[in-house]
């Protein structure tokens, strides 16, 4: 089958009734669409679908629709679209042949005939399917089968590495956690007090705080010494042993003996 069938077929070219979504479709006496109605009319010709007279069929369809209109039946749009197309086909078939028209009316008629044959074939196939010896209607399975059981057995798998790694993980996890803090180089406040007090001695000239720090290349230790010496200077000033002088915030801090 091919998607193009329905698209290319002139019967459904314009109105695309097959696709018209959600349109209320009135079944005319239970026909399922115009093709179904056409097939029923074709059957009434009582000839092989391959030999059917399309012209006669078109006449019947148009007459049927005309009758339905006379009776003021509401006719679904797709039946009317088909009627319009068939009226067009009829006029083409009756007019003298125009070789320029493509597809030719004969080809259109042939396509319609093929469609009817296909629908008829599938309708018949459906009937034959339903007439077969069907399970649960004509033939029966065993009423009370013991049933086959599949017992699932787990085949456990693990690799040696998993085992060893797991053991390592357990041991590592259960190790008592001892936190050893590495000793950082610091100058304690006590050390700084002694050092600054000793170095200031009785000097009356101002000296920068930095000049009281020990010689070191260790930046960490230097920072610690600076902080401790600063606190030591404050402490000594509080006790009245030294005087402090700073011209402005963050300016160098000067110390001398009081």
């Amino acid at each position: 089958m091919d998607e193009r069938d329905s698209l290319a077929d002139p019967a459904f070219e314009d109105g695309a009734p097959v696709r018209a979504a959600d349109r209320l479709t009135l079944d005319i006496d239970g026909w399922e669409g115009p093709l179904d109605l056409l097939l029923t009319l074709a059957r009434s010709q009582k000839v092989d679908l391959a030999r059917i007279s399309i012209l006669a069929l078109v006449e019947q369809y148009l007459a049927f629709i005309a009758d339905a209109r006379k009776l003021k039946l509401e006719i679904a749009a797709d039946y009317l679209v088909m009627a319009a197309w068939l009226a067009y086909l009829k006029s083409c078939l009756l007019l003298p042949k125009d070789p320029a028209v493509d597809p030719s009316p004969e080809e259109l008629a042939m396509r319609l005939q093929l469609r009817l044959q296909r629908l008829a074939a599938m309708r018949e196939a459906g009937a034959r399917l339903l007439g077969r010896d069907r399970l649960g209607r004509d033939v029966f399975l065993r009423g009370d089968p013991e049933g086959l059981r599949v017992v699932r057995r787990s085949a456990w798998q693990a690799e040696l590495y998993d085992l060893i790694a797991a053991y390592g993980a357990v041991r590592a996890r259960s190790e008592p956690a001892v936190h050893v803090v590495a000793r950082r180089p610091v100058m304690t406040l006590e050390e700084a007090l002694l050092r600054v007090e000793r170095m200031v001695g009785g000097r009356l000239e101002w000296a920068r705080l930095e000049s009281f720090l020990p010689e070191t290349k260790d930046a960490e230790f230097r920072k610690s010494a600076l902080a401790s010496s600063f606190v030591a200077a404050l402490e000594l000033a509080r006790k009245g042993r030294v005087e402090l002088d700073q011209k402005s915030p963050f300016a160098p801090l000067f110390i001398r003996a009081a």
Partner: protein
Amino acid sequence: MKELADDLRAVEAALFAAAEPLGADDIAAHVGDGVDVAAALAELQGHYAGRGVNLVERGGRWHFQTAADLAHILRREREEPRRLSRAAIETLAIIAYHEPVSRAEIEAIRGVQISRGTLDVLMEAGWVRPAGRREAPGRPLTYATTQAFLQHFGLASRRDLPGLDDLKAAGLLDPIDAAMEQLELESGPEGD
């Protein structure tokens, strides 16, 4: 009765006991690898031909079922398994003979839209399943029949669909365009 080979007995027992039709693989898994399951199945099928119970193959799976001609003694409740609408029957036939087939293709053959419920009914019955998307514009979903369809309608395979060969030979399962070309080759344009 003559003694049956143990292999045959085992295959017979497995099929009798099974709640579902069994493939040859399933049978082998139960009766053991050393058994020539295919040969046993063929022989058993012969044993049961003409009996009240027959061994049948449906889409590569095997099961026992009662003989069709005994339906009258077994159909106590006389219930039709499932009444299908005309639309559903036609749709099922179109799917079976054309599968995999898209919804638009089904509609093209029937000349009407199919309502959502029609395919649902067929899928709920377990006879139709979605069968992937077609590599074509819009990637339409296609439908095909199932194992349960073959079982229910007593078909050994899709090749057993009634009249399949005739329909094929008549070109009635081909797209209309292909059929038209064929007709033009065989004979000039026919004007009825």
